[in-house]
């Protein structure tokens, strides 16, 4: 079985889907001749033509708006926002339009688009090439949100997203580890992973760590380290946020009695608050410790200087420390 990183997997998945289905088109800035700034669409314009892999003007609102129109016209468009930080120009199209088309038309219309957007810090990207933006969309029913952390999941979730009858935001962590460094076996055959089904990356009885994206890699490594000291942590990778897998979360928390939620996005208003509320509502009597959240501090965005970024960003050590403290509670 071939071993691939995330970028190769995205590219191969897009290739496979486009070869099988004429309805699939890609639209975004630099996705055509250049093949995307990260290379996720490399060679696709050459293979499928510039009419299906469309270099869009530098205008995010219309990249999404045109994708919506194309979907209404019977295509399955994949819009690429070059960096999640630039998605804000397209928020009206995403929240006012894509998310509401089925609802407002009483099911007469639907909006099957995928918006791919590389997100996250750790690339010395400064304020505008480092953001996590999932919380902004998390309170918008009508949208689905995927945040895959591994190449295997990327393939299954991307295919599922393209054939999902509703709009999907597909956030890919873009740092050196998640986009290129981490590799694993990815089957050639097409497969899908259902939305709303978390993966347990590591089993354990002593505490639960819930995370997604890059932080899953750090949390798993921290759990391995902690295991050497005899503390067994269960690490849950949510894979999708809208919907998120309540069942797996609650089952694990009921088993361990302790839970740490880790995300790269800011603490306040982040996904962790909602997860904590669900756990408090539905698993309160199983808890042996307060629900803990570990997230980026509440600053507007990531500063550029490496020393500043290092201070702000979560890493394996910070997660390890938080896990250890919770285990000892």
């Amino acid at each position, binding site marked *: 079985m071939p071993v691939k990183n995330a970028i190769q997997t995205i590219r191969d998945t897009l290739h496979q889907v486009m070869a099988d289905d004429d309805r699939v*088109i890609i639209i975004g800035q630099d996705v055509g001749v250049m093949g995307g700034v990260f290379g996720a669409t490399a060679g696709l314009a050459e293979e499928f033509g510039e*009419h*299906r892999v*469309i270099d*869009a*003007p530098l*205008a995010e*609102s*219309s990249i*999404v*708006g*045109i*994708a*919506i*129109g*194309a*979907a*209404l*016209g*019977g*295509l399955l*468009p994949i819009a690429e926002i070059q960096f999640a930080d630039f998605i804000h*120009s397209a928020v*009206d*199209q995403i929240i*006012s*339009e894509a998310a*509401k*088309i*089925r*609802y*407002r*038309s*009483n*099911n*007469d*219309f*639907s909006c099957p688009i995928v918006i791919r957007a590389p997100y996250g810090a750790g690339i010395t990207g400064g304020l505008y090439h480092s953001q996590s933006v999932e919380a902004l969309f998390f309170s918008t*029913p*009508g949208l*689905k949100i995927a945040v895959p952390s591994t190449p295997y999941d990327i393939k299954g979730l991307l295919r599922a997203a393209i054939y*999902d*009858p*509703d709009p999907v935001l597909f956030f890919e962590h873009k740092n050196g580890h998640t986009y290129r460094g981490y590799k694993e076996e990815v089957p050639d055959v097409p497969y899908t992973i259902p939305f709303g089904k978390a993966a347990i990356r590591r089993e354990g009885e002593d505490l639960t760590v819930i995370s997604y994206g890059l932080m899953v890699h750090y949390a798993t490594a921290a759990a391995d380290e902690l295991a050497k000291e005899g503390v067994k942590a269960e690490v849950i990778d949510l894979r999708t946020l809208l919907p998120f897998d309540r069942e797996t979360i609650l089952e694990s928390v009921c088993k361990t009695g302790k839970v740490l939620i880790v995300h790269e996005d800011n603490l306040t208003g982040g996904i962790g608050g909602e997860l904590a509320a669900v756990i408090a509502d539905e698993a309160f009597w199983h808890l042996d410790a307060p629900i803990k959240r570990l997230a980026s501090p509440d600053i507007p965005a990531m500063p550029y200087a490496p020393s500043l970024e290092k201070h702000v960003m979560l890493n394996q050590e910070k997660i390890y420390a938080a896990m250890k403290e919770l285990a000892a509670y």
Partner: protein
Amino acid sequence: MDSEQARHEALGLTADDLLAMYRYMLAARAFDERTMILERQGKIPFTVTGVGHEGAQVGAAWSLRKGIDIVLPYYRDVGVMLVLGMTPYEMMLGEFARAGDPNSGGRQMPKHWGSRRLSVITQSSPVATQIPHAAGLGLAAKLKGEDAIVWVSFGDGAASKGDFHEGVSFAAIHKLPVVFFCENNLYAISVPLERQSPVPNVADRSAAYGIPGVTVDGNDVLEVYRVSLEAGERARRGEGPTLIEARTYRFDPHTTNDDDRKYRSREEIDSWRSQDPILRFSAYLKEHGFLTEEEDLALREEAKATMLEAARAAEAAPEPDGPSALRYVYHEEEGP
């Protein structure tokens, strides 16, 4: 009179066509007037009208092929929807937010159109968001080799938004089969055109996209039909989009929640009365012997009666079930 006669003949319109167009204009006016009364009576919470726009709307819609061309109308386009085949009763179901409202089942405010059956794409309240959708629909039609053109309308206010620029620009770059139709009534709620646009005509902006821009007298139904037909044919030939600006005037406030006395004088409104597209078309028809004064009065009465009857029937229709508000957030598997 001979040259006047040549106008509709040159356009290939028969007396029957002209009278049908006129009846749609009267119907649009009567519909709007009835909805305004319904709001004042407290029977519906809100409405928005297009009184004064009927010539622009019917002239443009008459150029479209029903069920083939894809239409994205905005919230004043009663005349467009009537021509495309939405019945007054169906439209009244929307005014009363009844379960049978074909646009949204009572979920949206009145005149937020959408009907797959009629090839009318669902619309929202934020203005101009539909303009990139039109470009995307044009792209899909072109890729699929379909014969359809896409027709999208909006007000002069929408032309100030970024989505207008982005959508028109993309359609022009890719020569997409789209007709952009601006119903310029000179006000974005209270803000007059000269506070919105540094150039006198919305169509002047077409120069920036390298496409034809046409400013047309929006109160002249035949002239609007002529330029719309031309733009549609151009789109069908694969030559790309056209930006049409139909200059008109809104006689009513922006919506029933607006008091337009705060921003325009009664004298100004009255000065536009002689330009009323219905008056002008009525005069044209009479001049050419297609309509008598008695027939005109009868048609107007008939339109009023139709709308009153449609309103009565819609008022009696059932409301949507409360719990149905939770449905269709996402795709639902077939079931009850």
